[in-house]
C-alpha cells in the first residue's frame, strides 16, 4: 500500500539504503508479487518447515542447559524417585532442565513433539507430492532433495532421542549396536567406530550431540534452502482447473496474501506445539531412569518414525541366521534392518526416474495429476503405505496384545502373512478404485448430473433428467492427457536383422504396460457430441453401460 505523502517511485528509507548498496529493489520487483497457487495440501511442507523452525528455537533453549557428558554424578535435585541415584551428567542435566529451569520442561516437550510432527509432516508432504505426480520433470532433483531431508530427519530424530542417556533410548542404542554388528566383515569395527570402543563406552553421547546439534541440522538447513530455492525457481505446481495450464501459475502474490497466510501457519504451528508441550507428557525419562544395560521396561519402542524398523526386526524369524565358512551372517537382522528399508527407500528415491522411463514422457509438468488419473502410481503409493502400516503395527505388537487381549505370537504370525498379502490386495483395490473413479468422471461428462427428476414420455417410458456439466466442471474431468504404454518395435528390422537394444526395449515395454495398459481415457469432444446426438432420452439405457468406451481395455494389438 503506497502512502500518499511520498511520491510514487521512492522506496522507504531502509529499503532505499539497502538498494543503494545491494540492488535490493531488483529482488523485490522480481519476488514480492510472485504468484503462489492456493491449496491446503500445499501447506503440508510448511508444517514440516515451521516445525523445524520450532525445533531450532526450542533446541537452542534446551542445549543451553544440557551437558553432553557421560561422567557419573549423584542426583540431588527435587525429584524424590531419583535421590542419590548415580547417573551420567547428560541424564542429570536433562532432569535439571526439566524440573529446575522455569519453562525448561515446556521447551523440552515442545521440542520432542515438534520432532514427531516434523517427520510426520515430511511423510505426509512426500505422499502429497507422490500421489499428485509433482515429482515429474523438472522436479526430480527436488524430490531427491526432499527424500534426503527425510533421511536426515530420521537421523536427527534418532540422535536427539538418544541424548538424555535414559534406559529406553539406551536400549535403542544397544539395538543399533546389535544391528551394526550384524553387517558382514566390517560390522564389529563399525560398532567400535560409532561407540569409540565397546558398547556403551564413554563417547556416544558427546558424539551424538555433535551429530544432533551441528552436522545434521546444518545439512538439513542447507538442503531446506536448496529445496525452497528450487520451488521458487521452478514456480509451484498447481492443481488442474479452469484457466490453469502448464504455462501459467494462478494464485495470490507472496506479498501480502501468501506472506500473511504463511506467517499465520507458522504461528498456529508454534501455538499448537506449545499447547501440546504444556499439557501432554512426552518422553518422561524420569520414569525410565539413567541408562544401565541391565534394566528394560515393557513397551520398549522407539519414536514412531523408527517403528517400521522395529516391526521388521520383530517379524523376521531367527532361522535366517547362517554360518558360511565359519563366518556368521545374521540375515535375521540384515534383512529387516538393512535390506528391506534399503529397498523401500531406494525405490522411493528412484520412483520419478522409473515412472518417466516407463511413460517415455520427457516434457515438463506443472499441472498436477488427480490421483485417480494415475491408477498404477496411486496403487503403488497405497501399497507402500500398507507395508509401512504393517511394519509399524508389528513394531507395537506387545501394546496391541495388552490393549486388545491378544497373543503376541498370533499377532506376529498374522503380520508375517499380511506383510506379503496386504500390499498386493491394497494395490489391486486402489487401482480398481482409481479406474472406477475415472469411469465415474466419464459418466458425468457424457451424461451430466443426476437431478433426481423423473419424466414420463408419451410412449410411457420413464427417464431421469440429467443436467449437463458446466464448462469448468467438465474441464476438470477431461483436462488430463491419456497415458498409453510405449509400443514395442519388432525384434527385427525390415531386412530381418536383429535390432540392437531390443531386449532393453522389451523390458521397458513390459514395465510400461504394467503402468498404462489398464486405463480409462478422458472423454473427447467427439464422444461428448456422439453421446448428445444419441438424443436426450436414453442416457440410462443398459446398452450404454456395455459400450466399449466405458470399459477399461486391456491393451490389444493396436498400440495407442
Amino acid at each position, binding site marked *: 500500500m503506497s502512502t500518499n505523502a511520498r511520491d510514487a517511485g521512492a522506496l522507504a528509507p531502509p529499503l532505499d539504503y539497502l538498494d543503494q548498496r545491494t540492488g535490493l529493489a531488483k529482488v523485490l520487483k522480481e519476488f514480492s508479487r510472485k504468484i503462489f497457487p492456493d491449496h491446503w495440501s500445499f501447506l503440508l511442507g510448511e508444517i514440516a518447515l515451521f516445525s523445524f523452525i520450532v525445533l531450532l528455537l526450542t533446541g537452542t533453549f534446551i542445549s543451553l542447559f544440557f551437558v553432553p557428558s557421560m561422567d557419573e554424578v549423584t542426583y540431588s535435585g527435587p525429584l524424590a524417585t531419583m535421590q542419590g*541415584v548415580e547417573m551420567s551428567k547428560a541424564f542429570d542435566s536433562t532432569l535439571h532442565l526439566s524440573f529446575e529451569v522455569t519453562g525448561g520442561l515446556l521447551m523440552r516437550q515442545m521440542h520432542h513433539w515438534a520432532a514427531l510432527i516434523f517427520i510426520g509432516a515430511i511423510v505426509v508432504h512426500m505422499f502429497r507430492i507422490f500421489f499428485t505426480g509433482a515429482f515429474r520433470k523438472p522436479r526430480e532433483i527436488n524430490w531427491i532433495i526432499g527424500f534426503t531431508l527425510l533421511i536426515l530427519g530420521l537421523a536427527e530424530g534418532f540422535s536427539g532421542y538418544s541424548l538424555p542417556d535414559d534406559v529406553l533410548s539406551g536400549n535403542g542404542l544397544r539395538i543399533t549396536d546389535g544391528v551394526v554388528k550384524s553387517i558382514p566383515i566390517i560390522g564389529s569395527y563399525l560398532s567400535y567406530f560409532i561407540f569409540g570402543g565397546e558398547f556403551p563406552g564413554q563417547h556416544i553421547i558427546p558424539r551424538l550431540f555433535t551429530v544432533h546439534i551441528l552436522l545434521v541440522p546444518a545439512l538439513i538447513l542447507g538442503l531446506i534452502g536448496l529445496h525452497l530455492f528450487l520451488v521458487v525457481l521452478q514456480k509451484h505446481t498447481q492443481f488442474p482447473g479452469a484457466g490453469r495450464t502448464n504455462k501459467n501459475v494462478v494464485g495470490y502474490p507472496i506479498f501480502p496474501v501468501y506472506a500473511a497466510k504463511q506467517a499465520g*501457519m507458522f504461528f498456529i504451528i508454534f501455538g*499448537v506445539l506449545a499447547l501440546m508441550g*504444556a499439557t501432554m507428557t512426552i518422553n*518422561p525419562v524420569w520414569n525410565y531412569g539413567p541408562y544401565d544395560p541391565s534394566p528394560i521396561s515393557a513397551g520398549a519402542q522407539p519414536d514412531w518414525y523408527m517403528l517400521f524398523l522395529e516391526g521388521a526386526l520383530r517379524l523376521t524369524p531367527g532361522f535366517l541366521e547362517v554360518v558360511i565358512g565359519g563366518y556368521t551372517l545374521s540375515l535375521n537382522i540384515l534383512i529387516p534392518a538393512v535390506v528391506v528399508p534399503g529397498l523401500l527407500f531406494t525405490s522411493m528415491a528412484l520412483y520419478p526416474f522409473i515412472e518417466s522411463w516407463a511413460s517415455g514422457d520427457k516434457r515438463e509438468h506443472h499441472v498436477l495429476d488427480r490421483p485417480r488419473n494415475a491408477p498404477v502410481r496411486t496403487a503403488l503409493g497405497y501399497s507402500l503405505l500398507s507395508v509401512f502400516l504393517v511394519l509399524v503395527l508389528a513394531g507395537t505388537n506387545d501394546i496391541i496384545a*495388552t490393549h486388545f487381549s491378544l497373543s503376541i505370537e498370533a499377532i506376529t504370525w498374522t503380520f508375517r502373512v499380511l506383510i506379503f498379502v496386504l500390499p498386493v490386495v491394497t494395490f489391486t483395490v486402489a487401482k480398481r478404485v482409481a479406474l472406477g473413479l475415472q469411469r465415474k468422471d466419464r459418466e458425468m461428462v457424457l451424461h451430466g448430473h443426476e437431478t433426481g427428476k423423473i419424466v414420463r414420455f408419451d410412449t410411457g417410458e420413464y427417464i431421469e433428467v440429467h443436467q449437463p456439466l458446466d464448462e469448468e466442471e467438465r474441464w476438470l474431468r477431461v483436462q488430463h492427457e491419456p497415458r498409453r504404454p510405449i509400443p514395442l518395435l519388432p525384434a527385427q528390422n525390415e531386412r530381418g536383422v536383429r535390432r540392437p537394444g531390443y531386449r532393453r526395449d522389451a523390458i521397458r515395454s513390459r514395465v510400461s504396460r504394467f503402468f498404462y495398459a489398464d486405463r480409462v481415457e478422458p472423454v473427447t469432444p467427439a464422444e461428448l457430441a456422439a453421446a448428445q446426438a444419441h438424443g436426450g432420452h436414453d442416457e440410462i439405457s443398459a446398452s450404454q453401460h456395455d459400450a466399449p468406451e466405458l470399459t477399461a481395455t486391456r491393451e490389444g494389438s493396436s498400440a495407442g
Partner: protein
Amino acid sequence: MKAIAARRHHRFAPVVLLALALLTTGVLYAAFTPGPAQAASAPTQDDLTAGNNLFRANCATCHGMNAQGRPGVAPSLIGVGAAAVDFQVSTGRMPLMNQGAQAPAKPVIFTEEQIRQMAAWVASLGPGPAVPAPEEVDPAKGDAAQGMELFRTNCAMCHGAVGQGGALTNGKYAPNLGKASPTTIYEAMVTGPQSMPVFNNATITPQEKRDIIAYLQAQKAGSPGGVTLGSIGPVSEGLWAWLLGIGALIGAAVWIGAKSS
C-alpha cells in the same frame, strides 16, 4: 557385657554359642520366610472351620477337597500360605470364571472376613508366606529412589517403567499396578502368582519391598509434564502426535486454503 566376656572361655561356651547361633539362624529364617504365625491376629478354630467350609464350597471343585490340587487343572495349595490366598481372592482372580491364558482381576465376591478365614485354613495346611502387617507395606517407610532402582531391575521388564503393565507370551500379561494396593504388591512378590517369579525376602529384602511400594505410590502424583497418555511410551506419543498434532495442523491448513465466502 562384662559377664559374657568373663565367661567366654567357659567350657560350655561353644555349646551355648552353637545354641545361640542355631537360635539366631532359626529366628532369621523365620523372619525371612514369613510363616502363618505372623498373621495380624491369630485365627480361632471357628475361623478355620468357616474357612474350610468356604473352601469346600468355592474352591474344592478345582483344587480338591484337601487343597491337594488336580494335575492339569489347578495347583496344590498346601504351603502357599495365607498371602497367596489373600492375593488371589481379594483381587477377584480366584475363584476362576473360565479357563483363559491367565486369571484376570475381577470384582471380589467375598467379604474381608471370609477371605481371612479361607486364608487361615489354607495357611494351616503347611507353612507359607503370611499376609503382611501394615507397617511392612507402609510406603512412608520406604525410599522411593531405592525402589526405582529395584523396580526397574526386577519388575519393569514385565510391568513397564511405572507399572502400567505389559505383554507376556501366548496372551498372558503382566497387569497394570496402578490400582494395586501395597498389600497386594507385597503378596505378589512373596508368592509369585501365575507367571510371576517369586521374590523371596533374600532376593528382595523386606525393606526393599517397602522401597518398591514407595516408588509405585509416588507414581500416584501423576506426571510433571501433563497428561500421561497411558505411560506406555513412544507408541502412544506417536499416535497422539498424528491424531492431535498433525490432525490439528492439517485442519489449520484446510482452513487457510479454503476460500472465504
